[in-house]
């Protein structure tokens, strides 16, 4: 909207200022013709100038502008005009509301600048009229506009700032050069007509001074002094702190020009900021509680204090300068002080910037402490301006020094020197075994942003290692390691002095200390506490690596464990464990390790057998229980129970084999004897053999998989990782991976619950089968015993005729019983094959572990797959037949 209006107005301006056509036609038609072109060019020129984004080079201040105009009028010796102007301006500026001018300052500026121009023009036309006009219009006559205002014009906006040394003044009909300095000004061809010069000048100055004094009751010197007081946060005589306005202002009771009032207010911003900073320091140090501020807060206050002392120095210098007169600058006989309000503005510009920064920091750091405070200041240091950066760096070096001292003590001595909770490592009082895992923690809120997270983790671990050594391992070798670390760090370039901005030096020191101390921890773990030996012992005893021992143990405790759980004595089992150790190769193991092996009875329910509650455990003490925590041992227990069960099933199957073996001849006897009943019994026994074989195949292969694919493979990997471990965390992680991989691969993990359940029911079924087979063979043997003594039976039959029927009945009963057994066996076989098929089918579903080898071994001859195919394709065939039939017909 504006641009359209502006362009219309500009066009209007152009036509008003350029001579009209009729005026030109008197001169010549061709000139009038050129007017349009010139007007168009002038219009474009004006639009271009307006379009350029020149910012006014002086401050938008109407009062100051009016002052300046008045002063000029006075200096021209037109004091009555000046008064008239003051009156007009007062009325003019009093007009507020719609329909009157808003941008009064701009209008005044234009008027003043045009007035000056006119004046100069007059002087020129009168003095050196001919030559100047011709030179001025020279470019214009060639069709171009003259260049932008020459330097002469430029003096316009500036001369209200400093009183001009000389000025061309027109005073009515008379022209003269007034010179305020002592030397006479070379007039450069201007004709000087002098007529009672002294009188006019003196009276003009007198009137001006009176005018000034009339407006202001207070001298500028007094104001300057008061402003300097205000800069120190003290109320002066005229300038006082106003609570409602929240700032220093000149007391309303005194009459001061508005321009001055504004200027004072601007100057006193420094004072306001100073008060704020000072207040913070006072609150923190003099009355505050140490717990709330902490050492970092104290350091912050101290560095603020130092910055303020710089500021005090400046103020003192300024105060000393207040009464010094300006050298070589005297107007008439009045001597001006060196410091005016405007000069003060320049002097205070830089301290203002600094004080603003400090005030912002004070605001930001309120309520923060420790690392958080250092972090907040660090955020401000991320700034492009070098002055800001240098101030912040200076502050941070001091603020961070307590923090870095804490880091140093923590990393090299393991001391948590942090009474005010400022450090980013926090300690919790915990028991020795949880010290490593839970004893210390990073507090992210207190971590300043210039320390990266990874470095913080490293710092945490190093101090933790020292504490771990001290508390859990009872070791004092770490002090040496720390000393080495310091020596190495100081050799690598820095002298052990840490500070803000030297994050690299800090990193070097921390890395060095961490390397030494972690190495020491690992050494202690391996050598003094024999971590490797214990891991191996756990593998051998809890993971059934020591085969002969387990075999003996199973043989010895088997009968006891078949009893109900509540009747099993753990003391007896402990004795049996002892004898199993003595009977096997385990006896050659060291006593220290064997002592740790214990029998553990788990809590039992009604109906539980000894098998369900028996387990072995391996006792580990400080500091190894940092690795082998209770949760880890619970996992080991889980694996042990599974393996123990598997072993038991295998054991049961081989026991069954033992019962079956002596009956081979017996079976042959049955088949050869030819009797129908007996052949039926033989068929049952044969089925029993097949089923056992099938089960044995499954169990053996599963055991093979567990032993070789799971346990040994994971163990080998664990050993490798143990070698590579750099610190205790790595070691713990490696061990955890080892255990997790065993659990996952043995199908004990969360994701293979279904499979594990199937496996358990398979085991149960096999145990049921074992009982069944035992009974079957017992009965079969009884049948055989009876048929062996058939001769004796015949005699008996003759002797006790009356008993015959009963004997036949008992014979029948046995056969019936065998038949029942056969049916039961068929049931078990059917259940087994369905369960097993389910198990096989689920194996490929387990995506997270590689079970390919297990399923390959279990189904080596693809027997089960084919069986499965036959069952699943059977209904398909039925569907197909009609198609075939239709084709054939």
């Amino acid at each position, binding site marked *: 909207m*504006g641009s359209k*209006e*502006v362009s219309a*107005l*500009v066009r*209007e*301006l*152009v036509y*008003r*200022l*350029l*001579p009209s056509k009729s005026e*030109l036609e*008197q*001169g*010549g038609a061709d*000139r009038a013709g050129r*007017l349009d072109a010139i007007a168009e060019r*002038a219009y474009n*020129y*004006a639009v271009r100038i*307006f379009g*350029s984004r*020149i*910012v*006014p*080079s002086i401050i938008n201040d109407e009062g100051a502008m009016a002052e300046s105009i008045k002063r000029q*009028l006075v200096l021209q010796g037109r004091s009555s*005009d000046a008064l*008239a*102007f003051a009156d*007009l*301006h007062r*009325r*003019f500026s009093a*007009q507020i509301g719609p*329909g*009157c*001018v808003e*941008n009064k300052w*701009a*209008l*005044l*500026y*234009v*008027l*003043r*600048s*045009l*007035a000056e*121009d*006119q*004046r100069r023009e007059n002087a020129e036309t009168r003095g050196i009229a001919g030559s100047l006009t011709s030179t*001025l*219009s020279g470019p*214009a*006559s060639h069709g171009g*506009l*003259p260049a932008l*205002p020459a330097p002469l014009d430029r003096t316009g906006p500036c001369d209200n700032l400093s009183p001009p040394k000389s000025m061309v003044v027109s005073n009515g009909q008379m022209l003269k050069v007034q010179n305020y300095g002592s030397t006479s000004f070379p007039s450069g061809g201007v004709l000087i007509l002098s007529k009672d010069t002294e009188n006019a000048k003196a009276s003009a100055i007198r009137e001006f001074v009176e005018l000034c004094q009339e407006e202001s009751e207070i001298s500028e010197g007094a104001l300057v002094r008061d402003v300097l007081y205000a800069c120190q946060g003290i109320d002066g005589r005229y300038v006082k702190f106003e609570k409602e306005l929240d700032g220093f202002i000149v007391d309303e009771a005194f009459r001061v020009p508005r321009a001055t009032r504004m200027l004072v207010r601007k100057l006193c911003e420094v004072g306001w900021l100073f008060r704020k900073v000072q207040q913070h320091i006072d609150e923190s140090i003099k009355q505050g509680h140490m717990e709330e501020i902490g050492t970092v807060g104290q350091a912050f206050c101290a560095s603020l204090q130092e910055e303020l002392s710089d500021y005090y120095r400046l103020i003192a210098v300024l105060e000393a300068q207040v009464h010094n007169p300006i050298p070589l600058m005297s107007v008439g006989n009045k001597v001006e002080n060196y410091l005016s309000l405007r000069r003060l503005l320049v002097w205070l510009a830089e301290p203002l910037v600094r004080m603003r920064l400090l005030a912002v920091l004070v605001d930001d750091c309120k309520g923060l402490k420790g690392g958080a405070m250092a972090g907040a200041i660090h955020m401000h240091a991320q700034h492009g301006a070098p002055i800001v950066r240098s101030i912040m760096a200076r502050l941070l070096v001091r603020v961070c020094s307590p923090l870095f001292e804490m880091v140093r003590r923590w990393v090299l001595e393991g001391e948590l020197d942090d009474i005010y909770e400022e450090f980013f490592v926090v300690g919790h009082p915990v028991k020795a075994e949880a010290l490593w895992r839970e004893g210390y923690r990073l507090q992210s809120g207190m971590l300043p942003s210039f320390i990266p997270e990874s470095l913080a983790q490293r710092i945490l671990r190093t101090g933790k290692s020292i504490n771990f050594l001290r508390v859990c391992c009872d070791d004092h070798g770490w002090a040496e390691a720390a000393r080495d670390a310091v020596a190495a760090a100081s050799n690598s370039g820095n002298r052990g002095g840490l500070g803000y901005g030297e994050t690299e030096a800090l990193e070097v020191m921390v890395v060095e200390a961490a390397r030494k101390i972690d190495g020491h921890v690992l050494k202690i773990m391996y050598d003094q506490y024999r971590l490797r030996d214990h891991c191996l012992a756990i593998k051998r005893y809890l993971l059934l690596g020591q085969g002969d021992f387990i075999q003996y143990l199973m043989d010895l405790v088997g009968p006891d464990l078949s009893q109900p759980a509540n009747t099993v004595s753990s003391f007896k089992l402990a004795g049996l464990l002892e004898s199993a150790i003595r009977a096997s190769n385990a006896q050659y193991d060291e006593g220290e390790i064997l002592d740790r092996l214990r029998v553990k009875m788990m809590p039992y329910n009604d109906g539980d057998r000894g098998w369900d509650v028996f387990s072995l455990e391996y006792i580990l003490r400080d500091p190894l229980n940092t690795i082998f925590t209770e949760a880890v041992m619970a996992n080991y227990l889980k694996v042990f129970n599974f393996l123990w069960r598997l072993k038991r099933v295998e054991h049961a199957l081989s026991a069954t084999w033992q019962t079956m073996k002596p009956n081979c001849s017996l079976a042959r006897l049955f088949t050869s004897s030819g009797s129908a009943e007996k052949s039926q019994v033989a068929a049952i026994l044969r089925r029993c053999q097949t089923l056992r074989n099938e089960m044995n195949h499954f169990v053996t292969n599963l055991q093979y998989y567990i032993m070789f694919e799971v346990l040994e493979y994971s163990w080998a990997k664990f050993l490798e990782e143990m070698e590579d471990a750099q610190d205790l965390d790595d070691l713990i992680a490696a061990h955890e991976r080892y255990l997790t991989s065993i659990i996952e691969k043995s199908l004990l993990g969360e994701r293979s619950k279904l499979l594990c359940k199937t496996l358990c029911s398979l085991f149960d079924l096999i145990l049921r089968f074992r009982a069944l087979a035992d009974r079957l063979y017992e009965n079969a043997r009884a049948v055989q015993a009876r048929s062996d003594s058939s001769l004796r039976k015949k005699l008996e039959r003759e002797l006790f005729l009356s008993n015959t029927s009963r004997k036949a009945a008992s014979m029948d009963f046995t056969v019936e019983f065998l038949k029942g057994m056969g049916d039961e066996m068929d049931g078990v076989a059917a259940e087994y094959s369905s369960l097993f098929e389910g198990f096989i089918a689920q194996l490929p579903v387990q995506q997270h572990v590689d079970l390919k080898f297990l399923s390959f071994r279990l189904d080596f001859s693809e027997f089960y797959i084919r069986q499965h195919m036959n069952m699943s394709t059977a209904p398909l065939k039925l569907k197909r037949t009609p198609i075939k039939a239709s084709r054939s017909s």
Partner: protein
Amino acid sequence: MEDGMNERARETLELAYRMSNLLKTGLDRSTLAVVMALTEQGVNPEALAAVVKELRREAAALRSVSFSSAP
């Protein structure tokens, strides 16, 4: 309302004109009105003053040339 506004505007212009005369800017009433309108539009006063000066110089040049070439 409208009358009051016009009245006030006229008064403002009158005051400005008198100030202008006092300062001997040589602007006539209507030109001053245009200048005021321009400053109200937010035109940079420094630029405006420069433009007015230039236009005046241009006009003077035109006149002097036309007068000198007339005889």
